[in-house]
């Protein structure tokens, strides 16, 4: 029989240290929903999503109750809509966003991702229409998330798309000015986007994915922090070992829930995403893990090294615990969703430049960053270009989710509510990047993409 120590260790992790399953995400292929008539196509999209995901939420809730582990989000990702909408004669793709939104509300999930386009090498007509429609689509729906892949290690960086995404982000911010530019919190610009990411806002169901699949994202920054509290002053070997062991235990939960959800829903199990995802709740912060390692504030010198260690140890521990690992798998550093990151920005310890450096060694990138409302589209595009370059050269996923909140200035704070938290407005470099961005064209793929 299990020992009392083991039983209570698990219970303590869940009750006191915020261990949870962050998301069960059902990936649904919509490739059979294309039709020249946009209304017919949208109806097919709605019908298929509501049919496949009918029992997703109730199944998640049952597992939650029976195993005693909170499952915070149940979500859906779909085939990038640009691929489905392209066959339509109409150019008003926002109808698809509305169909997705209705379907998500019908089945009771809290986000649906996949209002997306993959343009790392160039645009098709459908991609152009979809990207143009993003600001409107996100401001007129509640649960729809959008992502655009503008770069890849194999293709280089599509700088035309980068420039356009700068404008799209600005437009999305303008259309939702009343809610602190909330639409931008639902829009991710990727380099090297992955096809099986269960986390929002960047989830979509990639074209190499099966008809339907269950992907699970775990969480547990609080558990890692508590484990590190017990090894204060020990050397980095001990720190790495402690994180690995903890990540292993956290991921085993994810594997169990993923298998169980897949069995009950009769849908194949895809992957467990090993990411450490913070929430604004106290005791659920990635920044606090870094501080527990001995940094006075997240963002000071040493932060990048601490994050590199954390990210690597999480993967090493997690990979043994799950039969299939995928998604983004690393540590997330979204500013507005992490109480420690918010504090670090407010106290002046954490800057945009330091965050950029941190994104070189962890999963994803500049995430949930609020910048002044008067930041230009070109500057936002240049921030995206820098992140894309980091991803392309380092053969990793990077992303930008940036929020130029209209009318807000440095020192203000924008409230998004819920898991999206609240973001302090951060300083951006005031010198212009316009001429650079306005060149357009494509930055060639790096030499090391030529592996064949």
């Amino acid at each position, binding site marked *: 029989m*299990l020992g009392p120590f083991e*039983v209570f260790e*698990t*219970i303590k992790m869940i009750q006191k240290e915020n261990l949870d399953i962050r998301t069960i995400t059902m990936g649904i292929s919509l490739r059979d929903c294309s039709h020249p008539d946009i209304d017919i196509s949208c109806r097919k999209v709605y019908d298929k999503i509501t049919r496949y995901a009918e029992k997703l939420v109730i199944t998640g809730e*049952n597992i939650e109750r*029976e*195993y*005693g582990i909170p499952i915070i989000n149940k979500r859906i990702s779909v085939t990038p809509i640009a691929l489905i909408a392209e066959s339509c004669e109409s150019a008003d793709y926002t109808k698809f966003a509305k169909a997705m939104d209705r379907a998500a509300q019908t089945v009771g999930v809290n986000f649906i991702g996949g209002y997306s386009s993959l343009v790392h090498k160039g645009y098709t007509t459908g991609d152009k229409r979809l990207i143009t429609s993003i600001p409107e689509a996100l401001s007129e729906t509640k649960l729809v998330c959008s992502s655009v892949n503008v770069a890849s290690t194999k293709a280089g960086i599509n700088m035309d798309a980068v420039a356009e995404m700068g404008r799209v982000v600005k437009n999305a911010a303008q259309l939702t000015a009343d809610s602190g530019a909330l639409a931008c919190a639902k829009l991710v610009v990727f380099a090297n986007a992955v096809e099986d990411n269960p986390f929002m806002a960047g989830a979509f169901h990639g074209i190499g994915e099966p008809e339907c699949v269950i992907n699970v994202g775990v969480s547990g920054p609080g558990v890692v922090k508590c484990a590190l509290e017990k090894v204060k002053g020990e050397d980095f070997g001990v720190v790495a070992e402690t994180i690995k062991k903890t990540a292993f235990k956290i991921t*085993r*939960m994810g594997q169990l829930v993923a298998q169980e959800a897949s069995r009950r829903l009769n849908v194949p199990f895809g992957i467990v995403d090993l990411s450490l995802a913070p929430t604004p709740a106290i005791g659920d912060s990635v920044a606090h893990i870094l501080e527990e390692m001995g940094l006075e504030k997240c963002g000071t010198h040493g932060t990048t090294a601490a994050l590199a260690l954390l990210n690597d140890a999480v993967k090493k521990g997690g990979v043994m615990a799950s039969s299939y690992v995928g998604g983004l798998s690393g540590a997330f550093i979204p500013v507005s969703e992490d109480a420690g990151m918010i504090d670090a920005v407010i106290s002046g310890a954490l800057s945009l430049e330091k965050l950029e450096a941190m994104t070189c060694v962890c999963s994803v990138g500049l995430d949930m960053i609020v910048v002044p409302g008067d930041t230009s589209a070109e500057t936002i595009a240049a921030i995206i270009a820098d992140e894309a370059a980091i991803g392309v050269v380092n053969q990793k996923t990077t992303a930008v989710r940036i929020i130029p909140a209209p009318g807000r200035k440095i020192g203000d704070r924008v409230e998004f509510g819920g898991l999206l938290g609240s973001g302090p407005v951060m300083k951006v470099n005031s010198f212009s990047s316009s001429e650079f961005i306005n060149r357009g064209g494509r930055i060639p793929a790096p030499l090391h993409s030529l592996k064949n």
Partner: protein
Amino acid sequence: MRAVITVIGKDRVGIIAGVSNILADSNVNILDITQTILQDVFTMIMLVDISKCNIHFHELSEKLENKGIELGLKIQIQHEDIFNSMHRI
């Protein structure tokens, strides 16, 4: 199917009786019980077989939770697999 019931709180008369009455009524068999004082807190772990349980899992869970509230304790039931998956390879 087996589940683990955990009881955490202040020791008092009637904890085991309270829990095992509910289990007997629901046709749940107790396989093992351990109890100990961890950091001054009374803790009890019961391994039970719920395969012949005559009510839904969530009803059983609710009854135990309410009994906990009545006795001033925290009582929880969870599938055994959550502990096995974390601590056994």
